[in-house]
């Protein structure tokens, strides 16, 4: 098997300067354990986890400190051994508030109990493997943070034939996945095979953008002699190539139906870091307590790729890279296209924090309030086939029914439109506002309809 070019291209998209050279050649270094860890109990999509420790408790690394509180939820483990200082509501790396367990490490970094490595996963029942993954608190590490065990348990009737490991890393600046594929290609490949085994899929692909030839080569080497329909799919470098639905289309030609999930077209996408975490959880019994984070941007003195504990404060991570220089305009958790601007740097990194980006005041994108000049660039850039310009005007005029009619809910918030907009309109913010309002109204309508039913 050899790497093949993706048979399809994404629709629209943009080509931002990738700015990855600052860190793409730097090996991942292990960051020291910081003096204070801020572990969020809401690091995933779905119901926030319920903290199960209280102030003063001693915890060991890998001990559950917050347990899943529903089907779509995930456990959180202590990233090191130490004492719980507080459990309070605090700002997190998603710029939202959540319960945060503050831990003061004791420096021992002692693991919780004998871990349970699994020697032969190939003969294990998929259910057991999924339970292990759930117990390890693994979530999609590409950014969305969807609990992995949910993704790996398709409801009966949905059969998955294709697993795609997402190594596209189309966000500019970020190199965490890139370095992971280079340095831990075997772990990624192992995790990929475990996922395929769980889902009983026949096809397994690793999608990598063509701006990372060394990662493609490394993954090919790891996958040499693999059985079945497997291979590296070389993707055209174009943002948002790594968006789930776009990736599925590039690799398989299938389009996830509007409002549907990848499993509706028989596909599951997992990020490379997630695959590596799955491998660690299954073969070594290690829960997810650390991840690779790229700390970069023009205002970071020495950009690095760091393997950091979950909960490491962003400010501390930046300190490890020599601190900030110049006039810092914005610090972003994640990449420049979909990352979240942080109001405060004393927040703990999450399982989904793939990067920390500090950009100068000059290059911090300022949104204007100029009217749309209908140039149509956003229409060409939109990978979902929407009219961002029109949607934004509708939402600005609070015409949410019109926005719903022209599919605001199909927006994936990739930011390609706003990247291109010459009038610098805050298109993505409009979309998010529109999506939220439309959903709220829809829920209200449904509740009203239910109420009417009951009255009858």
């Amino acid at each position, binding site marked *: 098997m050899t790497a093949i070019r993706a048979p399809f291209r994404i629709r629209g998209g943009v080509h931002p300067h990738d700015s990855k050279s600052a860190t793409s050649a730097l090996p991942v270094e292990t960051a020291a354990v910081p003096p204070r860890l801020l572990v969020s109990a809401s690091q995933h999509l779905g119901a926030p986890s319920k903290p199960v420790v209280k102030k003063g408790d001693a915890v060991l690394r890998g001990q559950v400190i917050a347990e899943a509180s529903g089907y779509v939820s995930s456990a959180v483990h202590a990233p090191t051994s130490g004492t719980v200082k507080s459990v309070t509501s605090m700002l997190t790396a998603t710029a939202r508030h959540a319960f945060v367990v503050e831990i003061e490490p004791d420096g021992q970094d002692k693991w919780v109990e004998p871990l349970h490595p699994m020697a032969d996963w190939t003969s294990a029942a998929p259910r057991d493997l999924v339970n292990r993954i759930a117990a390890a608190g693994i979530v999609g590490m590409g950014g969305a943070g969807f609990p992995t065990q949910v993704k790996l348990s398709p409801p009966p009737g949905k059969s998955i034939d294709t697993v795609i490991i997402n190594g596209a890393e189309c966000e500019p600046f970020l190199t965490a996945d890139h370095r992971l594929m280079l340095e831990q290609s075997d772990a990624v490949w192992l995790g990929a095979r475990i996922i395929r085994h769980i889902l009983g899929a026949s096809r397994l692909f690793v999608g990598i953008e063509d701006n990372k030839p060394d990662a493609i080569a490394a993954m090919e080497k790891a996958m040499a002699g693999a059985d079945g329909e497997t291979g590296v799919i070389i993707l055209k470098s174009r943002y948002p190539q790594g968006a789930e639905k776009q990736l599925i289309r590039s690799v398989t030609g299938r389009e996830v139906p509007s409002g549907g999930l990848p499993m509706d077209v028989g596909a599951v996408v997992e990020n490379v870091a997630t695959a590596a975490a799955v491998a660690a959880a299954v073969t070594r019994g290690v829960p997810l307590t650390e991840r690779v984070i790229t700390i970069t941007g023009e205002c970071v003195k020495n950009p690095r790729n760091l393997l950091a504990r979950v909960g490491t404060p962003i400010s501390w991570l930046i300190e490890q890279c020599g601190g900030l220089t110049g*006039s810092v305009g914005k610090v972003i958790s994640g990449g420049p296209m979909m990352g979240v601007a942080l109001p405060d740097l004393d927040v703990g990194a999450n399982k989904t924090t793939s990067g920390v980006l500090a950009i100068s005041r000059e290059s911090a*994108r300022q949104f204007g309030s100029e009217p749309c000049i209908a140039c149509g660039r956003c229409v060409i850039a939109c990978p979902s086939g929407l009219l961002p310009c029109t949607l934004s005007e509708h939402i600005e005029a609070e015409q949410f029914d019109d926005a719903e009619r022209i599919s605001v809910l199909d927006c994936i918030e990739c*930011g390609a439109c706003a990247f291109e907009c010459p009038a610098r309109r805050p298109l993505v913010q409009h979309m998010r506002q529109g999506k939220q309002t439309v959903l709220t109204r829809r829920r209200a309508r449904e509740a009203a309809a239910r109420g009417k039913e009951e009255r009858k």
Partner: protein
Amino acid sequence: MSAPEKTALAVSSSPHAHSGASVRGIMMDVLVAMIPAGIAAFMFFGWNAIRLILVCSATSVLAEWATRRIMKREAAIDDLSAVVTGVLLAFNLPPSLPSWMAAVGAFAAVVIAKQVYGGLGYNVFNPALVGRTVLLISFPVAMTTWTMPSLYCAGMDAVTTATPLGAWKTAWSAGAAPEGFFAAFPLSGLVTGNRPGCLGETSAIALGLGAIYLLLRRCIYWHAPAGFFGAVAVISASLYALDPARNLPPAYHLLSGGLFLGAFFMATDMVTTPVTRSGQLIFGLGCGLLTMVIRRWGGYPEGVSFSILIMNSLTPLINRATRPRVFGTRSKLA
């Protein structure tokens, strides 16, 4: 929350990166693209070209500045859109037009067609074309008095003449084929611009150069011009095939009149044309069809400006009809 906040950070929605494109940059590109046509206008029509370009752009900018002031809104002249409107309007005027009329046109373009709607981005009709049409209706004689081009300003005494399309139409309304038409208007003159007509519309080669620049800069897309030229070519060729004596050859339809200027610089105006590329194609086709209808059957010899204005009015409907297929849906009619 105990971080020592040395400098307040900014928070804003993603994306935090930008292509660097700006409205001003786009307008600048359009201005650059108009330079070759401007030079051609100077070569063929002499100082009249400079006079009209200056009068129109100065009036536009002044009108824009004054109306923004009266409306108590932020001045927007630095986006250069008023200059673009002014120069485009000048390109659409006959060389001998008195300056005050040009100023009236520029005022109408900026104030009535644009600022009354709230400024750039809100206007429905192409401002320059509104300016031209207002002048055409108000001062029909001055707007149809053409002068013979004289290369390098030699012989400044203006010789009144007719445009190729005008000559053809006048002759046929009188019921006879125009004598010596093809000798008077050789194709070479139409390509270089050495023919009577509006200031900036005559030189196909200069306008083409500008268009290539705009296409390369991604300021315009090929769809609207292609539709425009395509429709004119197909219709004029069919008419010519049916009755070669009565109809102009397609080459004349393509190269004379304001087709090059209209197709590349006005049917591609961002604000007043559809946002989708298929919509732009339809827009162009509609312009071409209407242009040929007006040229062949209408009262006016030239229909480019009217056709673009009419298609401007259809733009919202075209936008509606050509919404792209949303990812993950079967058909756009969903």
